[in-house]
């Protein structure tokens, strides 16, 4: 039973770390949420025609409350992409070693990614509705991210359609690696196609003041920690389930 060495350990350093990171991530995202609505300065949006009295204040520009979506939208999008990186990484590891543990980890990474992709889509949908005034537009960034979501759906459809575990693991790994190609494309597309209406955030001259940058960074690192925590807890659940199965088999024998 030397293969037990490669089985995912339960209760090791990674699991303790996961608990700490999940807690820290929860605190950080909560702090980010509060800071977003209290400290972060509102963004000046489209000009109001002339100076008007809005909410007992003389205002020349409309201040956008919907811009607050951004503090959650970008961090969850980044987290979903990082998680998909995990899918590709464990896919490669599986093809190298043929160890079923890596396939399980790749699947769990994709699951975590799916959660964050859905969160990105939900917040993005609000953004397009309230900032751009449309429900959907075939903007390059939106489109590439949308097909990313479809590929993650496809990943699970593929897994469900293959019976043998070994073959399922191989096919899923291959598809996970190919699907990852879309991640850098989706990330870079707003830089490659300047006509895209989606703003480019990662740049040195993003014009974000510290009161905006702090909540954003809290949110970003918070969601990354939550993603890792979720992933690690899922690994733990699966590992325990495998152990229960093994014990059951032993009892049957």
């Amino acid at each position, binding site marked *: 039973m030397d293969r037990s060495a490669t089985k995912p350990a339960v209760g090791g350093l990674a699991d303790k770390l996961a608990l700490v990171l999940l807690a820290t991530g929860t605190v950080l995202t909560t702090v980010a949420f509060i800071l977003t609505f209290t400290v972060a300065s509102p963004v000046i949006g489209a000009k109001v025609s002339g100076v008007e009295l809005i909410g007992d204040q003389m205002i020349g520009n409309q201040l956008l409350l919907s811009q607050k979506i951004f503090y959650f939208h970008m961090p969850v999008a980044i987290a979903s992409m990082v998680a998909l990186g995990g899918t590709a990484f464990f896919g490669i590891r599986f093809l190298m070693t043929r160890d079923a543990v890596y396939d399980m980890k790749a699947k769990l990474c994709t699951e975590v990614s799916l959660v964050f992709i859905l969160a990105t889509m939900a917040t993005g949908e609000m953004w397009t509705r309230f900032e751009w005034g449309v429900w959907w537009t075939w903007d390059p960034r939106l489109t590439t991210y949308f097909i990313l979501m479809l590929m993650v759906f*496809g990943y699970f459809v593929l897994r469900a359609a293959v019976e043998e575990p070994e073959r399922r693991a*191989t096919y899923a790994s291959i*598809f996970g690696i190919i699907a990852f190609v879309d991640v850098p494309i989706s990330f870079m597309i707003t830089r490659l196609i300047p006509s895209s209406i989606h703003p480019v955030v990662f740049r040195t001259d993003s014009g974000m003041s510290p009161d905006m940058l702090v909540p954003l960074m809290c949110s970003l690192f918070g969601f990354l920690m939550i993603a890792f925590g979720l992933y690690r807890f899922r690994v733990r659940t699966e590992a325990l389930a495998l152990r229960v199965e093994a014990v059951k088999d032993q009892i049957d024998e």
Partner: protein
Amino acid sequence: MAVTSHKPSTFAQYKTLLLKDLQREFRTRDMLSSMAIYALLVLVVYGAALSQTGRQFDILQMSGGLLWALIVFTSLLGLNRSFGYEKEDGCLEGILLVPLDRSVVFLAKATSNLVFLLLVEIVVLPLFYFFFLTTTAPAPTWPMMLLPLFVGTVGIAGIGTLLSTITVNTRGKDVLLAVLFIPLVFPLLYACVSATTVVVAGGDIEGIFMNSVLLAAAYDLIMVLLSWVLYDFAVSA
């Protein structure tokens, strides 16, 4: 008497596998004829779909998109069948028993898929013109559309060969191929549609056309190389 044997060159293996595919197809013409008829039927559906549009309707702006939708759906049909044949009578097992590099199998299969797709396109393109474009005057640059057509078809054949190898062993393979294939070729499709539309309807050849073709070619390169590398795992799983 000593028996001498020599290992056939990689190119000879490739040629044999490719000729096997072509011979089998040209003996029955199963796949080609069904793809051609399917393409014709899609054109008929287009006829109904566009029948209520106005007289001033600008078909030239839409022709690139319609043509590529036709190509994608027709190639789905072909790709589905191309690997199904290998499964019959244990042909694939036979090929895998031969001590040859698996990437040769990929290259041969991708080339035969490419040949079939190009043949179907040769038939479909004049039909498309006949049904929809005779009343209009395409821009004089229209022959340049052959470039994105070729680049796009190479990508479709490359990605499709890997995916059809995967889906042939799954439940509900027809649907699954579409589910995996369409998102993966989407960037290619997007670039090819913009390149085709520009040369057919007229526009910024220097900028949009070259950029789109380069984008499509780069995506082709990445995807075909990845498929090539990963094919060994897919075909022996």
